[in-house]
């Protein structure tokens, strides 16, 4: 009992610290890619405490709920957006034997729970009683429909290769030559995951220059902060999943396993940030086209490839 509580506490700490590190990295990386410095004051050394200061500010702000809003749904939406990602982290191994809960159906659980997170955006979009929010919510829903399929197809390719749905089991079975073998699946998974997180260039539902902030338009204070936190936890979760499914998790020479996992996670998180700095935003019909005409066929090709190699071996 105690070790379960302890591991949950550890997960919670990881869950709160990693997104902050990713957020701070985003501040700094974006700034330096754009010939700026980024935060420099909070906490003294290169503004390391900027996000803590932001958190304090958010906590002090008034929690405004629009008069016409559907109050109860409006209030729980940020939680719905955030909590599923916390649950996902439970099933992800950091090192051999270092996982909070080793589920036999881990991959299935992870993909199912991740899909719930998007409901938060749809709920917020509907409950805000704001036309921009509704547009954003509808875009979120459409995006979820389009990108869940390639995500699941790509993930199932790895499960087929490993012959198990347990995530530690998949990492255990991973060999270096899976990198080229599962490369297409990995790319599809990462891109579809980005779209599910609504990160640029797939940030149509948020699109601040078009529909202000989409579902988040009416949110202030802590509830808005929870949405932002959900976004960064999402980055961490996506990077973790891509790492354990396609990049071999803890496998790697010289360094200890947990460090390898973290190195891969942060490399992927860096790519996520890099894409935001580089690309404009897709239009939603182009986004749908990319999913149905690009990613789904590619994921199917990967599935066929996995099947053929599996049979031949």
């Amino acid at each position, binding site marked *: 009992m105690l070790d379960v509580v302890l591991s949950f506490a550890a997960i919670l700490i990881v869950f709160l610290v990693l997104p902050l590190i990713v957020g701070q990295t985003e501040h700094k990386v*974006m700034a330096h*890619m*754009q010939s700026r410095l980024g935060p420099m004051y909070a906490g003294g050394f290169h503004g390391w405490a900027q996000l803590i200061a932001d958190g304090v500010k958010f906590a002090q702000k008034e929690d405004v709920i629009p008069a016409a809003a559907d109050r109860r749904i409006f209030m729980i939406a940020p939680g719905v957006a955030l909590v599923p990602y916390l649950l996902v982290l439970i099933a992800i191994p950091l090192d051999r034997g270092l996982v909070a809960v080793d589920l036999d159906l881990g991959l299935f659980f992870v993909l199912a729970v991740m899909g719930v997170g998007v409901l938060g955006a749809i709920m917020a979009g509907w409950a805000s009683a704001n036309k921009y929010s509704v547009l954003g919510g509808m875009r979120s829903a459409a995006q979820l429909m389009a990108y869940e399929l390639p995500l699941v197809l790509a993930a199932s390719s790895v499960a087929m290769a490993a012959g198990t749905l347990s995530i530690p089991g998949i990492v255990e079975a991973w060999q270096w030559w899976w990198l080229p073998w599962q490369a297409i699946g990995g790319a599809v998974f990462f891109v579809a995951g980005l779209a599910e997180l609504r990160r640029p260039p797939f940030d149509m539902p948020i699109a601040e*220059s*078009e529909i*202000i902030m989409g579902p988040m338009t009416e949110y202030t204070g802590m509830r808005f902060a929870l949405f932002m936190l959900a976004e960064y936890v999402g980055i961490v979760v996506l990077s973790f999943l891509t790492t354990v499914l396609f990049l071999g998790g803890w496998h790697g020479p010289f360094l200890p396993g947990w460090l390898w996992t973290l190195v891969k996670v942060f490399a992927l998180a860096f790519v996520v940030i890099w894409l935001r700095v580089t690309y*404009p*935003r897709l*239009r939603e019909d182009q986004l749908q086209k990319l999913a149905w005409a690009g990613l789904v066929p590619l994921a199917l090709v990967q599935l066929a490839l996995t099947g053929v190699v599996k049979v031949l071996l």
Partner: protein
Amino acid sequence: MTERVVGIGAGAKELATEDMILNIGPQHPSTHGVLRLRLTLDGERIATAEPIIGYMHRGAEKLFEVRDYRQIIMLANRHDWLSGFANELGVVLAAERLLGMEPPVRAVWARTLLAELNRVLNHLMFLGSYPLELGAITPLFYAFDERERIQAVMEEISGGRMHYMFNRVGGLKEDLPLGWLDRVSAAVAETRRRVPDIEDLILHNDIFLARTTGVGVLTHDQIMQYGVSGPIARASGVDLDLRRDDPYLAYPELPVKVVTRSAGDCHARFEVLLDQLKVSLDLADTCADRLRALPPGPINQRLPKVLKVPEGHTYAWTENPLGINGYYLVSRGDKTPWRLKLRSASYNNIQVLREMLPGHLVADMVAILGSMFFVVGDIDK
């Protein structure tokens, strides 16, 4: 629980749907201020669009009638806050024409140089802000780096970063500082070296191309009907540039290369802006060289304490960075104009949105709006 009906029929033909009316603005991130667009949406497709203007009306034309010419220059450089120097020019050109006053040759060349630098500043602003509206955040910072460099030389000469107030009837406020021309040339050379970075960053990006090519096509007829001018008109193949077709200042002696495109879509408009930027940098260089070669002499004329413009009327128009900017000056011999009508570029350019927007998606609306390169102060005056 409140019950609510929202008419978003996402493509469902058989279900009863209702159109949604969406007010873009007057407070909206992509309207650069307080333009308001009243859209009727079917899903996300725009059925009708109506630009509603006037939220920033400051009564500029009425104020012109109760201010003397020195004060009018100050008022006039504010309607389009990205082209302060170019706005001043029209006023002083009109007043000088009625006065029969000939500004000194050094003033003419210095004005031309400053007008081109102003054009560079203006275009850099839009080259940065347009990608931002499409979701690319980085080009903005590249463009602002360049703006900072050019603004430094403008600030050195006039003290202002946006509202230069450097024109006077009969010339310029002061002579050029020592060594300033060299600093101009250095800034221009550095900017010319850096502009390809912005180009590489965004112009050929696949997503940028997908968002802009074929979107918001403006036809030759629409341009003629609505009096659209400037880079927007030239992107649709309307080959009109007052610097070449009705030259003022030192433009008759300058090789003005008029940039045109035929596609008329958002991408063409962006390309025209980028190419015009390069042309302006070249023109600025030529002007700086000519100024160096000119013999020393006055930069302005001594004016009487109370400047009265003789009775008459004239129309002075200039090729402002955003299009044709005209002043119709009617004087009754007083120290203030009897009427000073302002024809600003953005006012005409924005009217055509009514025809351009229907049929496009909300996302395209932002792409089109951004590519119409307007300043709200220039619309509302």
